[in-house]
């Protein structure tokens, strides 16, 4: 929590978050604070619930117990007097507008060019003037190193290029919080680096980021804090040096050792 100012309100506050799909309990009481400007990397084996937790933060999945707060507002619910009430679909849509998200499968709009993909939300949802949004989109494309691909359709781009466009698309709404859901897991190994480079740049610029990934190297270099999840709970968290260098919990040690064997 080095970057966070003392006493500042957390950007994300999760308390006792429970989530099940049918009888299968995926999250079993998650507590987590993320401070403004902090870069948190969530590690864990497949099925540990880390992606599900990320998707709960912008209410793509609803939770069954506990609460999540983003930027001081409870996600999906509001207090009317002393009664907690579900928000309407529209109010939830409004809440999501300050959160940028990057998906494992990119999910770019295939019938729009890179530039059209990026300006869609700023113009259509945030009602920015088109010209202004396009200028900022070109700036973002330059930042992810794809200036010359503004008019290309997603199918004409490599996986790494598509994911960089997807990152630019998420940044275009000037988000207060960025969520990355395994952004490099669908990429060929030689394309992972270009995406991680862009993310490392962002991490250095004071953006609040939560990154679910299998890239231990990225966690070591870019994270302010590493959260290790297993079996639907946070097993341990702390600075990368602490969690990756000197893991306290046997499950963390097991996970990391498997990883080192693989490399």
């Amino acid at each position: 929590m080095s970057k966070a100012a003392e006493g500042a309100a957390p950007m994300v506050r999760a308390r006792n978050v429970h989530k099940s799909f049918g009888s299968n309990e995926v999250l079993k009481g998650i507590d987590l604070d993320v401070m403004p400007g902090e870069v948190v990397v969530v590690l864990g084996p497949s099925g540990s619930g880390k992606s599900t937790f990320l998707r709960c933060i912008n209410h793509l999945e609803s939770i069954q117990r506990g609460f999540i707060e983003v930027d001081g507002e409870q996600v999906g619910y509001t207090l009317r007097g002393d009664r907690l009430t579900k928000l309407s679909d529209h109010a939830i849509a409004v809440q999501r507008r300050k959160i940028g998200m990057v998906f494992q499968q990119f999910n770019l709009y295939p019938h729009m060019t890179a530039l059209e993909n990026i300006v869609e939300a700023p113009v259509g949802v945030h009602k920015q003037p088109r010209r202004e949004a396009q200028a900022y989109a070109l700036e973002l494309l330059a930042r992810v190193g794809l200036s010359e691909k503004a008019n290309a359709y997603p199918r004409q781009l490599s996986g790494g290029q598509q994911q960089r466009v997807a990152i630019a698309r998420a940044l275009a709404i000037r988000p207060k919080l960025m969520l990355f859901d395994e952004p490099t897991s669908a990429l060929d190994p030689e394309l992972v680096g270009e995406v991680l480079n862009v993310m490392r740049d962002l991490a250095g610029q004071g953006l609040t980021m939560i990154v679910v990934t299998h890239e231990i190297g990225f966690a070591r270099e870019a994270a302010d804090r590493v959260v290790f999840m297993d079996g639907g709970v946070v097993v341990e968290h702390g600075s990368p040096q602490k969690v990756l260098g000197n893991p306290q919990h046997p499950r963390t040690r097991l996970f990391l050792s498997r990883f080192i064997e693989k490399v």
Partner: protein
Amino acid sequence: MASTSAETGRAEATLRDVANAHQPPEWGRWLLWAFVLFVAAEFAWIVARNPNFGWPIVGQWFTEASILRGLGVTLGLTVVAMTLGTALGLVLAVARMSQDRLFSSLSGLFIWFFRGTPLLVQLIFWYNLSTLFPEIVLKLPFGPVLASWNTNDLITPMTAAIAGLSLNEAAYMAEIIRGGLLSVDKGQVEATDAFGMTRTRALRRVIIPQAMRSIVPPTGNQLISMIKATSLVSVIAMADLLYSVQNVYNRTFEVIPMLMVAVIWYLIITSILNVVQGFIERYYARGERGAGSADKAPIRVEEPA
């Protein structure tokens, strides 16, 4: 020794290069082509020479005023019924896919009824609505009558035809559109959710444009059957193309030539529609691999003043 083997190697590489391959002439295919063309020409000649088709009469009536008026009615009915049917079909499709039980079952009920009964019967029902409900009354529950109409004044052949055709079409279009919406990747819906798009905007900007690829071909099919289905309205005395030619041959007894007039007009319209459908399909295939010109004209962005 080494140099000669290198040379033969190079010679072989040239000889074996598939870029230099040539295709042997396919005599069998040429022969088949010639045979088929010959048979087609022969058939056309027989039809053209047969006096029973009455080609001079066809020519004489082809652009006659009452026929053209009938053609106008057929086209107008098709456009109106197809437009209303598609619009209502979209609403039904979205309602059918809604999480809300009430909307999805109402939509299911509509589709079940209007697909499950013959169009001809539906048309006759609409036309004879006055026998079921002689008067249509708009009033507040337990309150005063706001307005009332005599059903016979309201239901003309025209309104009965439009109601019958478009409600029937809506049921079919609803299923076609639903299929198209289901074909769009779930991740796309998720992306629009994550960006805080409203449901309508997501449908309009992201989901429907992608669904169009699988909606357009069956819709073209529907449109062509609609053009022909409009001929059913002749049973409720609506003067469409078929009704107009029937009017003529009931007087002149030139049944075959007059039907040929209608057939040729129907074929002309469907041919034009086929071409239009091709253009529309190409438009919605943009962004697909190998779909026409790769890049759009670059967009120039001027700095805001």
